[in-house]
């Protein structure tokens, strides 16, 4: 509390001072320099930023390339910069009128990259930093910032884990190093480090993803700090890398108005191959006959249903669906039955649209960027949609030569409708396995309302009925605000303070009416008691205050020194409310909880505070030798008194070898820099009060009434401390052939030690695991990025950017000298499939191998069997050679993270046309798909519809099928095996955009400065090997059922949306 008071006082004082300073602004004495900026062909370049070097005085060139700027002495140097051109410095030497020619054969090494608490020229960067120029993001349809990162940067694996709208992606920088404390990077937006959030055990962000509701069209650039040397300035949150996002700012000059609009459709990019209705009948008949034959002596498959009825002693007309088929299956035209392709019924073509208007401009005192955005997407599944409204104002004020301040504010509001499509036992999973044959009278609505269920169908309530009747509504209001002030104490020495608040209010409402619940008899007997609903909300607030002192000085023209020192205060607060109906609803047409017969609810709050001190030295000698060192000390309230502080140092060196005289003789090399770095960062993603022993409720009942019971929730580790990540990185950046080809290469090893691992302890302690600093994981890999401007002259231009990264990870130790931990399964021992084993990748897949189909000959030769297996059942590999198949025969057969991730972007320009093609992919990883298991397992009943591979099943010794899938009727049960193992390799043409510059046909340049139309195809082409699901990257279900070993996996994830979109960009 006192802290916040101090802070309020501080803010107040600063505000007062700024006001005071503002009044002191007065006209400057001196000279006015005027001039003109052109490109290398002499054409004027508009909107070039002209800055007096070493000051905050800047302006922007007009449309005809002319500018004027005030200077004091006339001997200053002017700096000209513009997107697409190399930055140029021009010493005035007393001249008052100059013409400047900018070089548009841009050298990317001249770019400025944003690093933690500052910027740096790319050529001077000695750590592993990768940049993505996002300023053109509004020229293609992108709905989320993380979507824009897919396939763009080496070492940054971005996975679209959900096809649902508005959902966060998974971003992993250089593999995964933490077993249970999260692997998502820290996001920093305009210097504001957002609260880190790890996905929950099901792969969802229950309390929001940091990038939710951030409008990608407002983004100027994105940098990813990959190695610890770059990231360590963010200390305890940097172990998984840092993603720095910079939003657009205004430039001095005339108002620039941009309108970007697009609209198009989206639909599924993939359909899962399931049996069709005829094939289902064929399989069901086969299984029912087999069940009949097995049910007793004298029962044969050729006995008719009538004969079976008599044998079973059933009344005329009565059926037993276990032993009898539906007579209508075999009748021509199957009268009274309807064949349904459930996937086709649920998927649709949805409209998607986005409209953005932005204005930017300014003068030497004020610069601004403002935008408003409307986005609406209708999902590929009926009754799903997402709408968002967002606005942004970035305003900077130069109060005086020494003082400037600014504010960034971005309120956003989003509404999404999703009745619960993805995940186990949710609608998508259910509709896949829904029986494709139904009574014609019920149509698409079996087991809904007054409809019963088709006797041979599974008992699922119609997924179409659920999609149409269940409400799942989420509304989110988020505002990110940053206020900052910067004061130049003496030339080169600046003090900067920022105050940031990120506030999210999220509420979700769900309602499932009784008509889509339970069975007909129950619905009719209990009516509204089967209705259920809930309302939950969270409020998340991150408050950050950062204060830095920076000093820049160039001594004797060769010693370039930058110093930084600072401290920050960071507080995260989360309030949760959940309310649930209990015992149904009193009325059916009300979806809010006032109509619930009973309500249970609770609220919870938690908070954590992070306090940090940090400093950095950057030194460059003669533009050749680069040195950076940083140190951060973080203290977190999550850890105990004695262990809460951690120190995170880093250092990096670079040698711009191309600046050496002996290299200047090699003209083919324009720039070559060797880099090496080391650093240590941390991970603190544990619950807020993870080191404080608490008592929990363990109520009991006595004499028919509840009594309160309380007891310790378990044993607590008071010495818990930071997870450490140590990275070594060596690399080089090279530019050759007249800047035509630039490339970067990095090799790294990242050792994560003292993992925040839930270490299994003997249950006799009262607890299964305790959070401890134990175990280690090593990631090793290399990354290469190449940009090649293949054709640079003439009407046709072609640029290629490619990246490829390779990562392997190994568990190098566990606790108590354990050699392995078998990851539990949420669905029983028969689906257990993951292992942490020293020497193998994290979450390696550990199952029995299927090696064919059992023949009579195998059985005669005493082949190893699992339980009561017979001919036609799968043949498994007896790994331990003990003559039987059991869990002891499991072997490691794959690992989830891919070995290689790559992306290629090709950009072509021809006259007014531009064409961009982004292709990306991965290989070397595996998926253990529980969806694949649910849809195609041994022992599966006949009602559920299985995967298409059942077409090629074993039917008899004479008709053994493809040798992969055993007989449909199997009674031996199941064991986790390679049946459900799929390769996660894929190649995907993520985006093709074809644009045309309308400026060539519209000549009214007075109003419209630039205009372009484009058409984009997203996810139109691709190939993957995942036959057991839609999306190899999908995560939607908690597979381990254990927060200590989070293992999100696919149990019904949507395919990626494929969209065709027409858009227009206009600049006024």
């Amino acid at each position, binding site marked *: 509390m006192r802290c916040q008071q101090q802070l309020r006082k501080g803010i107040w004082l600063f505000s007062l001072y700024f006001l005071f300073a503002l009044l002191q602004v007065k006209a400057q004495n001196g000279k006015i320099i005027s001039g003109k900026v052109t490109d290398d062909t002499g054409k004027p370049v508009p909107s070039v930023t002209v800055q007096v070097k070493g000051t905050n005085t800047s302006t922007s060139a007009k449309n005809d390339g002319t500018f004027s700027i005030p200077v004091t002495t006339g001997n200053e140097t002017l700096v000209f910069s513009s997107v697409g051109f190399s930055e140029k410095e021009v010493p005035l030497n007393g001249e008052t009128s100059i013409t400047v020619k900018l070089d548009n054969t841009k050298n990317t090494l001249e770019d400025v990259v944003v690093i933690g608490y500052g910027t740096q020229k790319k050529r001077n960067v000695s750590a592993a930093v990768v940049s993505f120029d996002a300023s053109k993001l509004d020229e293609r349809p992108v709905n989320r910032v993380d979507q824009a990162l897919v396939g763009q940067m080496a070492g940054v694996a971005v996975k679209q884990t959900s096809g649902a709208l508005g959902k966060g992606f998974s971003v992993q920088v250089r593999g995964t190093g933490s077993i249970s404390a999260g692997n998502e990077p820290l996001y920093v937006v305009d210097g504001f480090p957002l609260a880190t959030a790890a996905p929950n055990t099901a792969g969802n962000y229950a309390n929001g993803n940091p990038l939710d509701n951030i409008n990608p069209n407002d983004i100027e650039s994105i940098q990813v700090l990959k190695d610890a040397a770059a990231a360590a300035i963010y200390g305890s949150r940097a172990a998984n890398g840092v993603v720095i996002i910079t939003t657009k700012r205004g430039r001095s000059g005339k108002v620039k108005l941009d309108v970007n609009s697009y609209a198009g459709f989206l639909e599924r990019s993939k359909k899962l191959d399931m049996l069709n209705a005829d094939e289902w009948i064929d399989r069901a008949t086969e299984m029912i006959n087999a069940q009949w034959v097995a049910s007793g002596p004298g029962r044969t498959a050729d006995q008719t249903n009538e004969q079976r009825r008599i044998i079973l002693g059933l009344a005329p007309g009565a059926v037993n669906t276990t032993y009898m088929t539906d007579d209508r299956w075999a009748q021509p035209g199957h009268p009274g039955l309807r064949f349904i392709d459930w996937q086709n019924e649920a998927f649709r073509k949805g409209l998607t649209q986005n409209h953005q208007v932005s204005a930017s401009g300014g003068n030497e005192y004020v610069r601004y960027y403002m935008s408003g955005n409307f986005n609406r997407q209708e999902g590929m599944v009926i009754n799903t949609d997402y709408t968002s409204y967002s606005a942004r104002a970035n305003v900077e004020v130069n109060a005086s030569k020494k003082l400037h301040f600014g504010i960034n504010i971005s309120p956003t509001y989003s509404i999404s409708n999703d009745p619960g499509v993805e995940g186990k036992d949710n609608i998508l999973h259910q509709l896949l396995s829904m029986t494709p044959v139904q009574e014609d009278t019920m149509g698409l609505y079996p087991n809904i309302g007054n409809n019963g269920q088709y006797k041979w169908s599974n008992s699922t309530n119609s997924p179409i009925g659920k999609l149409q009747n269940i409400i799942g509504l989420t509304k989110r209001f988020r505002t990110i605000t940053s206020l900052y002030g910067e004061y130049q104490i003496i030339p080169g020495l600046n003090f900067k303070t920022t105050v940031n608040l990120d506030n999210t209010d999220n509420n979700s409402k769900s309602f499932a009416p009784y008509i889509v619940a339970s069975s007909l008899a129950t619905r009719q007997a209990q009516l509204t008691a089967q209705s259920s609903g809930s309302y939950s909300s969270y409020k998340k607030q991150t408050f950050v205050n950062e204060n830095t002192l920076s000093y820049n000085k160039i001594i004797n023209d060769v010693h370039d020194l930058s110093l930084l020192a600072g401290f920050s205060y960071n507080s995260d607060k989360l309030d949760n409310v959940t309310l649930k109906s209990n015992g149904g609803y009193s009325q059916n047409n009300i979806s809010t909880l006032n109509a619930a017969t009973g309500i249970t609810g609770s609220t919870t709050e938690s908070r954590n*505070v992070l306090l940090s001190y940090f400093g950095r030295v950057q030194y460059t000698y003669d533009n050749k030798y680069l040195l950076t060192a940083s140190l951060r000390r973080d203290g977190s309230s999550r850890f105990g008194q004695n262990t809460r502080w951690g120190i995170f140092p880093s250092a990096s060196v670079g040698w711009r070898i191309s600046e050496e005289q002996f290299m200047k003789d090699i003209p083919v090399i324009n720039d070559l820099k060797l880099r090496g770095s080391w650093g240590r960062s941390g991970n603190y993603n544990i619950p807020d*009060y993870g080191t404080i022993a608490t008592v929990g*409720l363990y109520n009991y009942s006595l004499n028919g009434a509840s009594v309160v019971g309380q007891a310790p929730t378990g044993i607590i580790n008071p010495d818990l401390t930071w997870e450490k990540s140590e990275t070594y990185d060596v690399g080089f950046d090279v530019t050759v052939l007249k800047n035509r080809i630039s490339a970067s290469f990095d090799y790294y090893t990242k050792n994560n030690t003292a993992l925040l691992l839930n270490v299994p302890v003997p249950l006799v302690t009262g607890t299964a695991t305790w959070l401890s600093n134990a175990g280690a994981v090593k990631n090793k890999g290399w990354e290469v990025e190449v940009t090649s401007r293949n054709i640079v002259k003439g009407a046709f231009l072609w640029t290629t950017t490619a990246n490829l990264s390779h990562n392997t990870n190994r568990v190098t130790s566990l606790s108590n000298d354990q050699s392995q931990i078998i990851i539990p399964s949420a669905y029983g021992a028969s689906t257990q499939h993951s292992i942490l084993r020293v020497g193998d990748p994290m979450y390696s897949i550990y199952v029995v191998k299927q090696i064919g189909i059992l023949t009579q000959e195998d059985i005669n030769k005493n082949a190893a069997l699992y339980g009561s297996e017979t001919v036609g059942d799968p043949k498994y590999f007896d790994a331990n050679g003990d003559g039987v198949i059991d869990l002891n025969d499991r072997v490691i057969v794959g690992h989830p993270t891919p070995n290689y991730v790559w992306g290629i972007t090709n950009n072509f320009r021809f006259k007014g046309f531009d064409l961009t093609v982004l292709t990306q992919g991965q290989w070397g990883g595996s998926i253990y798909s529980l969806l694949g298991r649910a849809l195609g397992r041994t022992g599966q009943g006949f009602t559920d519809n299985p995967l298409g591979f059942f077409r090629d099943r074993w039917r008899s010794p004479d008709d053994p099928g493809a040798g992969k899938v055993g007989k449909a009727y199997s009674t031996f049960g199941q064991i986790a095996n390679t049946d459900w193992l799929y390769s996660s390799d894929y190649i995907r043409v993520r985006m093709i955009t074809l644009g045309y510059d309308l400026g060539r046909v519209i000549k009214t340049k007075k109003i419209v400065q630039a205009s372009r139309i484009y058409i984009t195809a997203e996810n139109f082409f691709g190939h993957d090997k995942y036959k057991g699901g839609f999306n190899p990257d999908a995560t939607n279900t908690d597979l381990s059922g254990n927060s200590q070993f989070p293992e999100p996996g696919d149990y019904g994830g949507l395919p990626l949306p494929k969209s065709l979109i027409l858009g227009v960009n206009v600049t006024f």
Partner: protein
Amino acid sequence: MKKITFYIVIIIAGFLSACEKNLDQSPISASPEENFYAQTSDFIQAVNAVYSGLAAYPDRQLNLSETRSDNLYAVSDGGVRDWEGVNDFYKTLAGNTYVTEAWQSNYNAIFKANTVLEKLSEKGSVISDANLKTRLEAETRFLRALFYFDLVRWFGKVPLIDHTVSAAEALQIGRSAVSDVYNLIISDLQFAVANLPDAYTGADKGRATKYSAKGILALVYMTRSGPTYNINGPGLGLSEWDKALAQLNDIIASGKFSFITSYPTIFSYTNENNSEVLFDVEYSTGSTPVVGGTFPWLLVPDTWFQSQGKATQGGLTIRPVSTNLLNSYEAGDTRKAFSIQSGFTYNGVTETRSFFKKYVDVSKTPANRLDWPINFIVMRYTDVLMLKAECILHGAAGTQADVDAIVNQVRARAGLLPIANVSLARLMEERRKEFAAEGSRWHDLVRSGLVESVMTAFEQTDDVQHAMQPFQRNYIIYPVPQSEIDVKQGLYDQNPGY
């Protein structure tokens, strides 16, 4: 401008001093342990939490005793169910959910009990009523004994933990000899017998009494008097039938309990805490957090509830009653229809197999399937009488006439004619039907020495699907959960046969 620099310095200095204190955060929505155990009600609540460790006790008896025995023939029904391996004597049970649960829940409850005992000696002075303090200790020790008794019957040798242990300490404690575990159980129960009240009134009904402790103590003596089978199981071959009988006779002599003449009334939803009950696991419905039970539907197929127009209960598929048990009921035995539902039709599908529905009053189906109100009786007066008969047949004081009288009293209630010269095997057969679905069958088979012959014969007659592995003596107890074996190599040895 100097002023600005001055302000900056002031603000930084003030800020740093104030903010470091902010790192001391304490939970907002949870209660720190250091503030607990400060008043009498805290200790009562702490003991209640130990009772809550019983919550899964009934389910466990159904999963591990009923399902493993000849009462159920729960082989694969297409799907894969965790009970299948229990029923079929799989060797790979070390990873089985039910087996792990038995270890985990009991030790978690023991942890709570040990915590209470330690806190009572550390901070118990806040309890001004000395009798209450002693009673709380006695209740806790009774419960700890019950948890250890449960463990020793499932696993044989188990680690003996009589105080709270750190992770490091736990890694040094291996499995203790069965006899050592019994020593703790018996000393706890003797303390409970000496210090628990005869009965409770009002809101305290359902707590352990002196006679609860005597009943369990008798069963403990009898269990360890059972044969050893040459395994480290619950039987030690001791002959303590007299000791057991003394406890049982005390209960009978107390007059606190009576033999209810209507079998269904014992299990009636409106007759809980009745005069048959020595100790039960208590539940009630409609509270938050839920304090209801799940055991009533555990063996019942979901579709049956639906056929009754009730919401799904999550009972999955059927766990059929064995033909062997069905056939063993004599004609006219009224307990059969009460305990067992034989077949039903739902959605046009006729299920011909039978299942236990002893605890289900379908009219009392709760809105939440995890919230059934009915108590689960751990020991009832009929049990006391029949255990007495068992002691007599093993040579404790008493006559064959006493045995016959007890058995015939039970038979008469079931509508059956009296019999004479009841043998041990015959007594166990009566127990099988009297206590069907009450979770005692496996323990009865093991204690009486019949398990080997009965289960081997059962497999020959009832395992028509040839799904079961041949019975071995090693299967009398379960394996130590694999997760525990994996914690530290060599800490616990695995039971033979697994």
